[in-house]
């Protein structure tokens, strides 16, 4: 954008993403684009068994294969600690088992790494894997989280009886029990939130280089949180000084949570690079990504919702079995607890609620945060049950929602589940807007008519609330919710001699458009041209320590750190300008990139002039340090709570069970909006992933622990033509948590959408007597639900 076309105020403008020209012209640099001199290539031999003892490993043939540099097994890497679990469920005992870099003695899921081949190229490395002979003694397998806790189930780890990682609860059990016992109506369901595979377009990987002279490592890795990886790898896995490792995230081709975590390839490429004295590259293929990198969701939940015939919800009782896979991934236990259990009542004032969560080990890939992380599961559960309740008492689902919403004057609102208070909200306004856009009353008439003609239309409402920018550290951290560190974010802002502004952030944008939005904020606040602001990130060398990008935190936490640093810059600029103009610092006004004396706007200095003065430092106020350079470590006082209502309209073909998603309306409230186009983009992508869960995607293990959906030929990621156009709109309820009034928008679309579609499908099927069905609503599942309901009636 040129200076002339640039609007004066950038915040709120749909400015095109500065990230995109490079990416859409194929000039991005992703991990697999990186080639280092002398680089070797790693391939991992993985367990074909879901549970087995390793009796022996013979690597001699692989070692002798031409082009193979080295072959290692778990026994070779015993100097490395297992990968840490950095977020254990708060205030309860966690039976922790984390993966070793390579398995030792026993494997616990298909894909568990057993040996590592390093070779001159990737092809040789792969061929040599086939030459390794491993003798396994298969052990019994369990893949279902509920069955895994039953007596006689196969046991994965000695320290976790009945495969239980932890038992965690929130709310008031006695009150919930009493409410359910006293209720006029109780609806009960078993609700399954199926396992999903995040499927970033770029798979994961690492490249490590070691400098023997200094003992320093450089690690390029597909990470959403390079500073955290540096900390975890050095302090926990290797036991070396943090200063000996530099971590760089190149362009990251989608993360969706899967790339937050510490993975074995980060460690084994480092370890092997040091051992062989050459750089080592490892890039997963899609099958490995599906087998080994983390999955999401996978809850089995028994839920009871109690209420009165007038539509008032009086109680909620929930028991969830959360499948965490074979070992604990980096933040796994925190997801079904803090980010799920504590928001299980959603947007509703429910006086008595209780949730119990069992984290469970099974012989499956590790499960951890996937876009939305806990909140989609919570939102799906409550929104499905509200519809279920509405159908039971014969009341319109929109009406039941209205009746039970937390009203606008109840904020800050404490939901009684141990969460910090919801910051702000106007849930009914968003619902009304969505109903208006979709033409709700009109649709209900059409639906009536259509049914008479044997056509099955359905509408589904999802009124969600979620948690973004999780903080403050003293709440989320170890003494509280169990997160093993802080959750603040950092930003450094410098105005260079030429007046150009360099921002470094601890956030790690990888598709969120953060470079654009941060630059919009800085340009507005400092009153400098947008193009004069550069946002740097991704490299632990040159950026302040930060926690990275996930949990929709980059703007509400990272952006606030930038905002604060800019405010400090402005304060210092005022002092320097006062000195230059021989005025009183208290009389200075900062406006549009100029500092002037209050009352006489033509006595001013521009930021560029001030920056030059600060930089050359020939004449600064007594005792002042040179340069405009300010850093902030921003720890918010609370999380933020975006909300909204999504509505889906479907038509179901009862002969085949095919669901035709005809319309999708999304009204989201993420507080103030910095860039509406970017917010829309985030919402669109999020909705696509939620619809994917409702209609298409599921990760399936068979009873032997084989991943049946191990390739994209069976795991149904929707293509563009499988999604309808999205009609997006907004309400704006600023967050009082931060002066920008922002909440976050990265995950809302996913959190809101699956239940909108499922509620619509079940609404369409209601004439057949269908009250609930599990996701995904594939043709066969719908067809069976119709037949089961018909058989039952």
């Amino acid at each position, binding site marked *: 954008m040129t200076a002339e076309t640039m609007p004066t105020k950038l915040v709120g403008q749909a400015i095109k993403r500065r990230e995109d020209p490079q990416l859409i012209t194929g000039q991005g640099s992703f991990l697999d684009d990186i080639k280092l001199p002398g680089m070797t290539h790693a391939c991992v031999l993985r367990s074909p068994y879901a549970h087995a003892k390793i009796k022996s490993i013979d690597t001699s043939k692989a070692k002798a294969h031409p082009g193979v540099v080295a072959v290692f097994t778990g026994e070779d890497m015993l100097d490395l600690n297992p990968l840490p679990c950095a977020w254990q469920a708060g205030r309860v005992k966690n039976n922790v088992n984390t993966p070793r870099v390579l398995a030792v003695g026993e494997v616990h899921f298909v894909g568990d790494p057993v040996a590592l081949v390093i070779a001159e190229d990737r092809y040789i490395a792969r061929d040599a894997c086939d030459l390794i002979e491993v003798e396994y003694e298969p052990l019994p397998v369990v893949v279902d989280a509920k069955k895994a806790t039953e007596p006689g189930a196969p046991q994965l780890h000695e320290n976790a009886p009945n495969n239980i990682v932890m038992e965690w609860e929130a709310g008031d059990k006695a009150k919930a029990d009493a409410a359910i016992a006293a209720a006029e109506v109780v609806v009960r369901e078993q609700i399954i939130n199926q396992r999903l595979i995040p499927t970033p377009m770029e798979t994961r990987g690492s490249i490590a280089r070691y400098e023997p002279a200094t003992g320093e490592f450089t690690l390029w890795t597909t990470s959403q949180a390079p500073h955290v990886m540096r900390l975890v790898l050095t302090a926990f896995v290797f036991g070396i000084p943090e200063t000996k490792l530099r971590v760089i995230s190149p362009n990251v081709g989608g993360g969706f949570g899967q790339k937050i975590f510490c993975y074995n390839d980060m460690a084994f490429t480092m370890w092997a690079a040091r051992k062989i004295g050459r750089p080592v590259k490892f890039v997963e293929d899609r099958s490995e990504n599906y087998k080994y990198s983390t999955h999401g969701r996978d809850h089995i939940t028994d839920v009871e919702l109690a209420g009165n015939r007038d539509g008032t919800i009086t109680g909620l009782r929930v028991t969830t079995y959360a499948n965490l896979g074979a070992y604990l991934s980096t933040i796994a236990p925190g997801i079904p607890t803090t980010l799920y259990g504590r928001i299980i009542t959603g947007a509703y004032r429910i006086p008595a609620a209780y949730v119990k969560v069992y984290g469970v080990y099974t012989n499956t890939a590790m499960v951890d945060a996937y876009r939305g992380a806990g909140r989609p599961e919570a939102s799906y559960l409550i929104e499905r049950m509200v519809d279920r309740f509405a159908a039971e008492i014969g009341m319109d689902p929109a009406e039941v929602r209205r009746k039970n919403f937390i009203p606008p004057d109840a904020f800050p609102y404490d939901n009684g589940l141990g969460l910090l208070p919801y910051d702000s909200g106007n849930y009914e306004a968003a619902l009304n807007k969505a109903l208006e856009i979709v033409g709700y009353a009109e649709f209900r008439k059409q639906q009536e008519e259509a049914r008479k003609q044997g056509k099955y239309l359905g509408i589904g409402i999802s009124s969600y609330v979620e948690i973004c920018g999780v903080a403050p550290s003293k709440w989320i951290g170890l003494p509280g919710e169990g997160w093993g560190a802080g959750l603040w974010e950092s930003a450094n802002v410098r105005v260079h001699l030429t007046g150009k502004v360099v921002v470094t952030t601890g956030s790690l944008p990888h598709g969120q458009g953060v470079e654009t939005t941060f630059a919009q904020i800085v340009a507005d606040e400092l009153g400098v041209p947008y193009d004069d602001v550069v946002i740097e990130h991704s490299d632990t060398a040159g950026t302040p320590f930060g926690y990275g990008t996930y949990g929709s935190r980059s703007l509400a936490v990272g952006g606030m750190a930038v905002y604060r640093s800019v405010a400090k810059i402005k304060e210092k600029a005022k002092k320097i300008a006062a000195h230059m103009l021989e005025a009183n610092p208290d009389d200075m006004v900062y406006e549009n990139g100029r500092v002037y004396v209050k009352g006489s706007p033509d006595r001013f200095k521009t930021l560029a002039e001030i920056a030059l003065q600060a930089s050359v430092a020939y004449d600064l106020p007594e005792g002042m340090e040179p340069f405009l350079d300010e850093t902030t470590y921003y720890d918010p006082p609370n999380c933020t709570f975006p909300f909204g209502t999504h509505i889906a309209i479907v038509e179901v073909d009862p*002969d*085949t069970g095919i669901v035709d998603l005809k319309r999708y309306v999304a009204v989201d409230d993420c507080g103030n909006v910095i860039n509406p186009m970017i917010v829309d983009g985030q919402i669109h992508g999020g909705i696509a992933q939620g619809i994917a869960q409702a209609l*298409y995607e599921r990760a399936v293990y068979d009873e032997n622990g084989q991943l049946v959906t191990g390739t994209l030929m*069976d795991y149904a990621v929707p293509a563009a033509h499988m999604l309808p156009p999205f009609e997006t709109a907004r309400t704006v309820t600023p967050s009082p948590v931060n002066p920008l009034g922002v909440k976050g928008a990265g995950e809302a679309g996913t959190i809101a959408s699956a239940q909108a579609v499922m509620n619509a499908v079940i609404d369409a099927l209601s004439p057949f007597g269908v009250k609930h069905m599990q996701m995904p609503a594939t*043709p066969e599942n719908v067809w069976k639900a119709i037949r089961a309901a018909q058989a039952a009636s």
Partner: protein
Amino acid sequence: MIPAPFQYYAAKTVNEAIGLLQQHGEDAKLLAGGHSLLPALKLRLAQPAVLIDISRVSELKGITSNGDRLVIGAGSTYYEIARNEAVRAGCPVLAECVGQIGDIQVRNRGTIGGSLAHADPAADPPAVALALGATINVMGPNGARSIAADNMFVGMLTTALSSDEVITSVTFPILGKGEGAAYAKLRHPASRYAIVGVAAYVKFDNGTVSACRIGVTGAGSVAVRQPAAEAALVGTSGDDAAIAAAANAAGDGIDYLGDIHASAEYRQAMVKVFTRRALTEAVRRARG
């Protein structure tokens, strides 16, 4: 995702390809569009020692119309077939079928010869070949021969082709007045292959159905005809009741498959539903 090592030959003629097949025997595989073979190689489910690339053999290219027949070179891609004017005018059901295969990348690479030779249980083209009574023309060490579609598909991934033969072309009829055909498919959500695919052909003489052929793919281990359903329609007026009765008679003789996307029970029910849909559309088209 990395295949085992193999030797690669790019054949220039059909004879050269046959010679290489004879020379390398069971170790060799022809490579056409690669969209069935390469996925299997990448997962190391297939590990042939020799690949003979026939994608540049010009004899296998081209679509010609001769009177009442269309001769489609085995190396024609789905894209070429779906866009071909002679096919769209003379045998629109073929264009309709191959136009629904996979996604655009698959249609740009995959070939009709490769599909019929591979005989994937979920492939679309075999259903249309059966319904239209196509002929598969092949060349081997002993010269040329033709295989009727009815005799081609023997079992799961198994055909009447011998391992040293190359499909050179496929002959389809050009449909005339009173004839109509349609393809109806339930798509696999991930791969877009057929969970159930039904191709139906009908011919009317004096307002009565004089011939009917139905080919079903996807449901079982191999694509098959539906004689009972066909017989049920022949001699009727082809009205809705007759179609419903014929569709109801469909589903026999299929060795049903079941997987996470569709159980055997569901596929069985869908054979009837999609037979009805394909027949309804074929009748509509036949009546012009």
